[in-house]
């Protein structure tokens, strides 16, 4: 670790922290041990941080807030936990049916998607939504996510609309299904969430060629979900959101 990196880490060391067990912080302290100037800077920094922190913490909540919180919460209808599970299951079932209908509708000879996916595929997609917390990476940067996907051998996502880069949060996941590699990128901006599946079919030149033939997105509405799918460079792209196809058209218009 160099001096600059150590200084950056030390600057983020909270004034009352008992967090010196953090390996990075420990390393930064080791750098500081041999650098008197850095040690003096850190002492001043901590002194300032401690003073500022102590003064801020002297602010107390105004009288009456606690009572207001308790009385307001008492008036709040608390949902029965099992009812929440039931709602979630129903929502997933609707989503599953929507996806199943979507894929069933496009299973003709002109459809790359119908030819590729088995009826179980939508349920796989849902299971990944369910396990969103287990996604490989959380990032505020699409380029970082794409590079991470590439490093893991996932399908390359070279042809994404520029507007995808305006999102503020990204999560990603790669998984394999028989001969397919699937990358899932979940993107969020404010309250809007988009889920992009990139599916790469290996060893089927005919299908690859047909995927190349569908550069114009096709839109399908299956409330509450909207889908767009297109094929390019041997890959199939499926974009899903809870909203309308207009939301998808808007975001894809910069493609």
């Amino acid at each position, binding site marked *: 670790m160099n001096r600059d990196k150590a200084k950056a880490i030390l600057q983020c060391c909270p004034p009352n922290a008992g967090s010196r067990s953090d390996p990075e912080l420990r390393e930064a302290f080791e750098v500081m041990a041999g650098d008197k100037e850095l040690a003096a800077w850190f002492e001043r920094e901590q002194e300032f941080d401690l003073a500022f922190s102590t003064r801020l913490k002297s602010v107390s909540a105004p009288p009456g807030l606690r009572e207001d919180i308790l009385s307001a919460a008492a008036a709040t209808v*608390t949902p029965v*936990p099992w009812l929440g599970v039931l709602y979630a299951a129903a929502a997933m079932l609707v989503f599953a049916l929507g996806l199943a209908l979507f894929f069933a509708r496009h299973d003709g000879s002109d459809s790359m998607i119908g030819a590729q996916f088995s009826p179980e595929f939508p349920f796989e997609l849902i299971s990944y939504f369910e396990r969103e917390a287990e996604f490989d990476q959380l990032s505020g940067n699409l380029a970082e996510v794409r590079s991470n996907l590439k490093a893991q051998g996932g399908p390359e996502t070279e042809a994404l609309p520029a507007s995808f880069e305006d999102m503020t949060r990204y999560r990603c996941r790669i998984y394999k299904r028989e001969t397919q590699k699937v990358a899932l990128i979940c993107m969020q901006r404010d309250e809007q969430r988009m889920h992009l599946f990139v599916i790469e079919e290996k060893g089927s030149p005919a299908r690859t060629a047909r995927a190349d033939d569908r550069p114009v997105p096709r839109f399908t509405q299956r409330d509450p979900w909207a889908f767009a799918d297109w094929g390019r460079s041997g890959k199939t792209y499926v974009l899903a959101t809870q909203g309308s196809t207009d939301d998808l058209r808007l975001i894809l218009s910069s493609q």
Partner: protein
Amino acid sequence: MSAPTNNESINFEELVDAHYNSLFRFAYSLSGKEADAWDLTQQTFNRWAEKGHSLRDKSKVKSWLFTTLYREFLKWSRQNRKVYSMEDLPGGAAEQHSVGSEVVNQADASALMQHLADIEETYRVPLSLFYLEDMTYKEIAEVLEIPSGTVMSRLSRGKDQLRRRLSSAHESPGEDKRPSSRNRRKQIVRRDEQR
């Protein structure tokens, strides 16, 4: 109240007692106004009453509450948009300001809270968690759901903004070159009334 283990049930009143002061301070540091901080804190506990049962890992309660308050603040912020750029800040160029702890010790706590509230939102939020909750950059990254490297750079820039603001206020007491957020809102309202 000690941090509950994964499946331990949570008594609402104990939860409020354990966290309402710190959540209020966090809300106050974000909004800069006591009344708004009151609403944000209350709204956060309302959210818990509605949705808290769905939190599986009960050891994450504190993180859940701070994340929820932050989200409530973002909604509030969209309705009361207040954006300052670096150019708005007194002091001009981004030179290093060496404000010592003595300046802080002389200042009124609510004035310090106001200085914090006047910092750009991007930097203010991690800075508040850092000073009020002694959170490490990794803990802040978890609450705000952003990469820890981003938190580090935001903390660094936030501290720089804070020092500039304190330095300026200390050098020219009573002569803040930029109107406070409250006064600025009053000016906007007056302008609107004159139309």
